[in-house]
């Protein structure tokens, strides 16, 4: 397959020189500083506030729930989260009051002078005990109960397992932040900040201020990482800043410091997944009974969608005629959990991959061969009974990974010796690109491309760049579709007053969905401009000079052969899936149970790598996040408050915690993706952790079923198997 020419990032020069303007870099004359008064308990009733009389509150502006002109709500799926809590506190750090001051020092004093009076009550912090369900759903294929009932015990095994994952922090290196401006003479409110989804922010502003969405202008600043953490929370922060701007009459900067960001922004949903699997003697999966439980935290936010994706992926990249997946996401008084790369899939992928390893152990079968026996191939149907008609790279991925690692002949779980134990592990996984089911059809994503007088093409889309390469990828697609030079393709700023709603930059959809619309729009524009031997720019310039219509806008239309039933949760869940396999090598010290991931080999089918260097970068970055999820990143809480509240204690991998990466890109094209491309952003996050856990199991001979596999947890598992070592 021909490897695309690597383009330089359009925004690259600005990034390497420090000129790129992130939210806190924006210079706004006369801007005030905004801050938040929050609850210091996880549950209770707000009785009022004590204002220290020694502080002169006339020097600052305070915004309270009554100041909200529209609805005191964070616009999301369900209207249950107030923008400012007026009475019933449901989580630690819930915002109660907003304060704006002319300088940072005064703001700090003001915030220290306001104490909420709260009558605390007993919080519900245990997801397994919670009876309040945000959402539940069931996926049924075949008849699981009949399969188990009629199982012949001599030729089948029943394998059970329970798997847990703790929460995980996105840790984008740029904390969240916005600058908001008071409404202008036309009543338009402007916010400028760090985000993934400008139109989500616009929708929230419209509801909070009771204005037409067109009166809320949202501009994305350079954004220093998102990973889902800036999918929904920016709506909260932008509305807070805008409220203060409106009331104070000044522009207001609300830039979180790391401590506040860690304490109150949404993290990954903790999970408990139970598997009960009926397996034939030859290792064939005959029936899978799966229970998925997610902790949603205090408010619904995005939990129904996270549950949806989790359930759809819960049976893994495998073929099975009888599947039942029952899932629910429940309310607790934790800080609401939200989007983080993978969005439910990493949790269930960990579970199903560990379950497959458990099956491999009980059958004495090589883990890769077990996957190979059961993996989905073209023509097979998934847990939602989706028949995979095209772009199924499972066989190619498997061939590639085994070719590079020979894992199929590796004596996995053979006894090891030595103080430093080496291990190798395996995972196999897939990830649906785009919104689930009818989501994309409902979204109606729009993209436009327009020629300027110079004959350059300006791409207009609300898809944001926050490191993953959106701008470069759009440039590459547009240049190819137009027959233009990449330098003659510009990407317009993400400003809701100038670009159409392309949908949120999430769900691994930007290339496949938005990119395909862009390719189509460019194809139409190129046809309009007409063919010729002169460079595109010249022809386009002439076309514009002739008063040709320089703009094409395309609205996404789902491929006609996709059908999804929301009521039964059956059908074509996603237009296409990315496929991958990981082999991880680790060293584990028997002294300290510290894990060192020394090598990670990954084979990934992305349909088409529009920009291979960028795709590799996504895979390497996502894989390291998965490695962190597997053994390093600890986030715990007490009484609903996160204990790791600064970077020194909430750790992520450093350059010394990173393995050597080997990435093999595979292309099994998807006909409805731009040049065959699918999605890749989230895929690497799914399989890295189970591969590491599998490698630890090989190294130590213990079964890891709870992430993160910290040294403390590994020690407990080891000592349970080696009780003679316990001397204390």
């Amino acid at each position, binding site marked *: 397959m021909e490897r695309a020419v690597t383009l330089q990032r359009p925004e690259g020069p600005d990034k390497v020189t420090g000129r790129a303007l992130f939210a806190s870099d924006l210079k706004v004359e006369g801007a005030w500083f905004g801050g938040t008064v929050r609850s210091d308990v996880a549950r209770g009733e707000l009785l009022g506030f004590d204002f220290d009389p020694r502080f002169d509150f006339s020097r600052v502006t305070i915004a309270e729930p009554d100041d909200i002109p529209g609805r005191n709500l964070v616009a999301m799926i369900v209207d249950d989260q107030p923008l400012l809590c007026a009475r019933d506190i449901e989580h630690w750090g819930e915002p109660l009051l907003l304060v704006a001051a002319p300088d940072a*020092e005064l703001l*700090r004093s003001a915030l220290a002078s306001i104490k909420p009076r709260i009558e605390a009550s007993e919080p519900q912090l245990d997801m397994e005990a919670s009876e309040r369900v945000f959402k539940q759903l069931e996926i049924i294929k075949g008849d699981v109960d009949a399969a188990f009932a009629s199982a012949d015990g001599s030729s089948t095994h029943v394998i059970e397992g329970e798997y847990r994952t703790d929460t995980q922090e996105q840790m984008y290196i740029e904390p969240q932040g916005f600058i908001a401006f008071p409404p202008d003479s036309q009543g338009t409110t402007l916010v400028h900040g760090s985000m993934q989804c400008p139109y989500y922010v616009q929708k929230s502003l419209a509801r909070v201020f009771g204005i037409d969405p067109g009166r809320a202008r949202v501009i994305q600043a350079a954004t220093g990482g998102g990973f889902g953490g800036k999918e929904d929370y920016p709506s909260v922060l932008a509305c807070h800043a805008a409220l203060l701007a409106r009331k104070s009459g000044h522009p207001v900067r609300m830039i979180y410091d790391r*401590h506040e960001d860690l304490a109150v922004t949404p993290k990954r949903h903790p999970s408990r997944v139970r598997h009960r699997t009926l397996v034939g003697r030859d290792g064939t999966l005959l029936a899978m009974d799966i229970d998925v439980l997610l902790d949603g935290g205090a408010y619904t936010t995005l939990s129904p969608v996270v549950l949806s994706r989790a359930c759809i992926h819960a049976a893994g990249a495998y073929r099975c005629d009888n599947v039942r997946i029952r899932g629910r996401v429940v309310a607790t008084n934790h800080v609401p959990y939200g989007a983080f790369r993978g969005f439910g899939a990493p949790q269930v992928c960990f579970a199903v991959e560990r379950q497959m390893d458990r099956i491999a152990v009980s059958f004495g079968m090589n883990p890769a061969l077990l996957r190979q026996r059961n993996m989905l191939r073209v023509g097979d149907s998934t847990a939602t009974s989706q028949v995979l008609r095209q772009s199924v790279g499972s066989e190619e991925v498997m061939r590639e990974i085994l070719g590079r690692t020979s894992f199929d002949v590796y004596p996995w779980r053979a006894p090891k010796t030595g*103080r430093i134990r080496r291990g190798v592990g395996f995972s196999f996984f897939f990830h649906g690109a785009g919104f689930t089911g009818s989501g994309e059809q409902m979204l109606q994503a729009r993209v436009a491309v327009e020629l300027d007088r110079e004959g350059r093409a300006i791409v207009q889309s609300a898809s944001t760049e926050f490191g993953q390469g959106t701008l470069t990828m759009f440039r590459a697609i547009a240049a190819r579709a137009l027959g233009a030079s990449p330098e003659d393709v510009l990407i317009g700023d993400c400003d809701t007053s100038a670009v159409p709603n392309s949908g949120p930059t999430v769900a691994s959809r930007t290339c496949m969905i938005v990119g395909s619309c862009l390719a189509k729009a460019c194809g139409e524009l190129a046809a309009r401009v007409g063919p010729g031997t002169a460079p595109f720019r010249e022809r386009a310039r002439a076309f514009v000079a002739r008063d040709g219509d320089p703009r094409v806008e395309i609205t996404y239309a789902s491929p006609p052969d996709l059908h999804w039933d929301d009521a039964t949760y059956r059908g074509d869940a996603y237009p296409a899936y990315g496929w991958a396999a990981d082999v991880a090598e680790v060293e584990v010290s*028997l*002294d*300290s*149970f*510290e894990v*060192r991931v020394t090598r990670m080999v990954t084979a990934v089918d992305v349909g088409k790598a529009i920009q291979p260097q960028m795709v590799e970068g996504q895979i390497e970055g996502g894989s390291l996040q998965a490695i962190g999820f597997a053994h*390093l990143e*600890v986030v*715990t809480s007490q009484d609903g408050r996160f*204990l*790791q509240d*600064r970077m*020194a*204690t909430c*750790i992520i*991998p*450093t*350059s*010394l*915690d990173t393995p050597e990466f080997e990435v093999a890109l595979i292309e099994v094209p998807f006909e409805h993706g731009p040049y065959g491309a699918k999605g890749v952003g989230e895929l690497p996050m799914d399989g890295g952790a189970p591969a590491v856990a599998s490698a630890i199991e090989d190294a130590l001979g213990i079964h890891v079923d709870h992430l993160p596999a910290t*040294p*403390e947890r590994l*020690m*407990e598992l080891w*000592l349970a198997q080696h009780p003679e*070592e316990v*001397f*204390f």
Partner: protein
Amino acid sequence: MNPTVIGPRTLEEALRALQDVTPDSRLLAGGTDLMVEIESGRTRPDAVIDLWRVKELRYLRDEQGGLRIGALSTCRDLLDSALARERADLLVLAADQVGAEQIKNRATLGGNLGTASPASDLGPVLFALDARVRLVSLRGARELSIDEFWTGYRATARASDELIESVFVPARTPGERRGFRKVGTRAAQSISKLVVAIVLRIDHGTLRGVRAGAGSIADKSLRLATLERELEGQRPDAATVERATRASALADARAIDDVRSSAAYRRRTLQRVMHTLIHELIEGAR
């Protein structure tokens, strides 16, 4: 938050400044601790004495075959010094793991000692090397053993009008073998879960001069008295080492469950790490 800052240029000026300030004041060296404390609001000193310009406190010199280290010496100074590597190799090893490059370029020995954090990476080494701490004031100078100096949780014997002037590492006894191990939360730039420093000799097949220090297993860096007692004068065989390290892990460690780790993990890991380190020293691997 604007404390008064006093910027002495000489040791004498610094000592005079100390006399002038209240107990709410703080000493500033490299800032890797204090600046974070001030910015976060955890500390609100009314005055800060900035020692950074007191060149007299930043030196590394030979003394009686040992090494005297000025309090303002940074981890970088230690790493860059051939003399330090020769005389106080264990301290250099520990200094290399205090944090990443940017931190090593600023973190000072005096600052580390003055803060007296239970998680200090350098403290255990000073205990193992039988270091001495010189304190100076306008009243004069005095030198304490590291044990006398470090009194408890974030507590030292430094009087409010005293400064840590230097640390003295005695001359290395011929045949001394030294080892250090830090177990952190990740491979670099991490707060320690456990720190161990061990020094010993083998004289005519017998363990001698055994000294060991540990950190993050109690409210302060401390000597592993039980380990020393159980090993001193014994034959360096496997059974002895196993017995001594187990006894030490049980008796010397006052480990607790905290946000970073568990008491059980610290105790067991301490035993294993000591065991491995001692065997490596015995085999001459270090």
